[in-house]
Every structure is written in C-alpha cells, then in structure tokens.
C-alpha cells in the first residue's frame, strides 16, 4: 500500500507539472468559453446548450488527456530506461502499475473538477442549479475516463506502439458507443455466426452508450440503484483491464 501511494504521489505531481496536462486544462476552459458563445445562438434553449456543450467539452478533454497520458505512462519510461531504476527497488510490478494508473486518473479528475466548477458557476449565472444530477453526470464521465485509461494502458503494453495504442483506444471509444447498435444489428442478422460475433463484441467492448448520463440528461433520469451498478461496471471493467495489464507487464523482461 505504501508503494502504491508513493508511486501515486509521484505520478500525480509528474502530471501536474507536465505541459500537456496544463494545456488540456486551459483548452478545456477555452472550450467552456466557446460553449457560452454557441449557447447564445440557442434562443430559448440557452441553459440546455450550455449544459450539454460544457459537459461534452469536459468529457472530450478528459478523454484526450487520459488516452495521451496513459499511453505514454509506461512506454515513455521504458524508452528512457527510467523503469530499470524503479524496478531495481523492492517495488512489485502490480503496485507500480496501479500507482501509476491511479495517479493519472487523479490528475485527470482534478482537471475535470476545475472545469466542472467553472461550468457550474457559469450555469448558475444563467439560473440553472441541479448540483446533484450534475455530480452524477460528472461521475459517469469520470467512470468512462477511468475505463478508457485502463484500456489505453492495456493497449500500450500489448501493442508497444504509442500511435497504434492511441488509434485502438479511439476505435474502442467509438465501438463503446455502438453497443446498442451492435445488439440491434445482431437482432436483425440472419447468420448465426454474425449474430454471435456481434453479441460477443457488444459485450466485450465497454458499454459507454448506456453509461452516457450526460447524453440522456433530458430524458427520464435513472435512479440511485442504476448509479450504483454503473459505478460497479466502471470499476470492474477498469480493474479487469488493469489485471490484464499487470499480466502483460509481469511477462516483460527488462
């Protein structure tokens, strides 16, 4: 536990000092400013537009920074050979990987919290105030971000190429939003093989479409039990990807 918290603290500070994190946070604030301008064109629906576009900007920035940071997380240390220095200490590889991952997610979450505070302030200026539902939507964005972070880490270790890992991460992000489409296609497919393949894919890919609280905000909202299971899903899926990453990382010879 001590090792995990030490690696966590070191990773968290490393990210906060990184220009990429700072630029992403600043770009997020610029996007929020853009959301104010665009929402002004929405006439009666100004608050709705500000809410949707602001949350979308937070998610987009969180996704880009998570994928970028986690793909670099281990590969950069392997390339710079800094990993040799770390692993010569009595550090379990699993602890190292978990500390690195959690530090990254915490850094991204901090950026998201900053953007969300700014966004809520702007919304309150337009007379909108639903902090509990907002927190639920933000929690779902964080859940998606954590799952994407774990998937990107796994891909970076499996593919050992940053570009390939990033491309596959974006592909899986898209696929995750197609889960209901895949089930729809499976229902209509005449071939048993195609049906099985589509159902298997729809279950293997992260189910982001149903996780999109931000997107179905204006529809009847799900209850607390749904939020519990959504949290359990994100945790279990991210943990499964992390366990696979540890398996791969354990097999690597440095």
């Amino acid at each position: 536990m001590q090792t995990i918290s030490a690696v966590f603290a070191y990773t968290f500070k490393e990210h906060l000092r990184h220009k990429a994190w700072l630029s992403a946070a600043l770009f997020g604030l610029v996007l929020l400013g853009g959301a104010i301008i665009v929402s002004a064109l929405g006439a009666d629906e100004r608050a709705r537009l500000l809410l949707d576009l602001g949350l979308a900007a937070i998610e987009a920035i969180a996704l880009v920074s998570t994928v970028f940071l986690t793909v670099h997380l281990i590969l950069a240390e392997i390339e710079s050979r800094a990993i040799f220095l770390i692993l010569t200490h009595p550090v379990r590889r699993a602890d190292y990987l978990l500390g690195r991952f959690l530090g990254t997610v915490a850094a991204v979450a901090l950026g998201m919290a900053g953007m969300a505070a700014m966004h809520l302030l702007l919304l309150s200026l337009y007379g909108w105030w639903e902090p509990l539902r907002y927190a639920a939507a933000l929690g779902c964005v964080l859940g998606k971000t954590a799952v994407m972070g774990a998937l990107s880490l796994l891909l970076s270790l499996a593919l050992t190429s940053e570009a390939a890992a990033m491309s596959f991460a974006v592909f899986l992000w898209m696929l995750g939003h197609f889960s209901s489409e895949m089930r729809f296609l499976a229902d209509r497919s005449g071939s048993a093989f195609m049906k099985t393949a589509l159902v298997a894919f729809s279950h293997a890919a992260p189910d982001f479409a149903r996780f999109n609280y931000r997107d179905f905000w204006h529809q009847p909202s799900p209850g607390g039990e749904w939020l519990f299971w959504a949290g359990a899903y994100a945790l279990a899926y991210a943990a499964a990807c992390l366990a696979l990453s540890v398996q791969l990382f354990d097999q690597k010879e440095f």
Partner: protein
Amino acid sequence: MKGRWLAAAAALFALALFAGARMRRLHEPRFPPLSELKAGPFAFQDAALAAAGFRAPAADLAWIQLLQYAAGSLPEYADHAGHPYEHLSTLSLRVTRLDPSFHRAVLFSAGMLAWFHGVERPDEAAELLNEGMRRSPDQPIYALYLAAIAYQKQGDTGRMIALLESSFDAPETPSTMKAILANLRQSRGEHREALALWERIRASERDRSEHARAKAKIAELRAILSKPSPRAK
C-alpha cells in the same frame, strides 16, 4: 501463479458483465438507432458526433441550424420561391432523431407551420406532431397542439386559442409560439388579451429572445388601447 492476473481479469470481467446487465435492466436510454439518421448536408456532422457519444450536443447543434434556417440564413437548405419554410419539418425531425427529448424543436416548427402568418400548413404540422408523439408519447403538449390544429380546421379559433393558451406557461412552449398566440389575439381585435400575453412574455426570463419584440408590441398595443374607441365617440 503465472496466470493469477488472467484469472482475476476473467472474474472482474464477469462482474462487469453482470453489473452491465443490471444497468441495462434498470434504465434504457431512449435514442433511436443511428440507422434512422437521414442523409443530407449535415449527415456527417450528425453521424460523427453521435458515434462519439455526443448525441445531445449533436441535437443542440442541429437546433441552432434549425433556428438559422428559420431566420433565413442556412444556405444548405434554400427554399423554393412560394414555398416558405419547406425544410422546417425535415430539420426539426433531424433534431428529434438525434435526441427525442428535444420537444421544443417539434413544437417550434409545428407552431410555425400551423399558425405563422403566411405559412399556415396545418397538415404538415400535424404530421410533425404525430412523429414527435410517436417518439415521445409522454409529452402532453404534442396532443394539445394536435387538438388545437383540429379546432383550427373546424374554424373554431376561439377554442383553438384557449387551448393553446393553456400551455402558455409550460416550460416546453417555445417563445415563438407565445408570440404567435399574442399576434393571433391581436389579429382578432382582442388587444387587451394580446397586451396581457406580451406582458407575460416580457416578464418571463425564459422568453428572453422575444423581449425586444414584446417591448415594441406592448408600446404599440398600449397606444391602440389609449385611443378612444369609435363607439365612445
């Protein structure tokens, strides 16, 4: 011991599948399948945003483009001469296909098609409302507008206006519809009622987009009402 992380991953993945199944059982987002999105000048924009999980923002952008079209500044959808707002229905259906909870898009267009001066195509408005009702059966204002259109077709303008006024303060009622209603009252010579409606528009923060027009209309109606009526002379 070598495969213990693999076993842990399998167990965790099974747990994720279980949690996902529970999640799906508890709540089903009401989005039409992407295959329902129609081809058109903005098809790529809609498909790209929807595929990336941004359906609500895609609907918001489609709403802005609908407003641009209504204001006459969307070159991708130019009207033929003598056919005002011929793409209004298409553009509002585009919004609801992206996000069926965007009721205001349907109500705005239906209101303009049925009651906007110089447009008056109630059948097209009714079709649009039926489509909106099919996608969101729990939205009562669609049925109310359909009933108002039925009264309009029967020539019972009084009941039509009374029905439409009953939804005046509903959050989904578009500001444009409120303005149309006030103008309908004025065109029937009901200046006091029209003035009251414009004052309600002016007092509502939600109808900020109509405040400038409301101010001018209030001044105009007050001037009309302050003149002595011909009967008094």
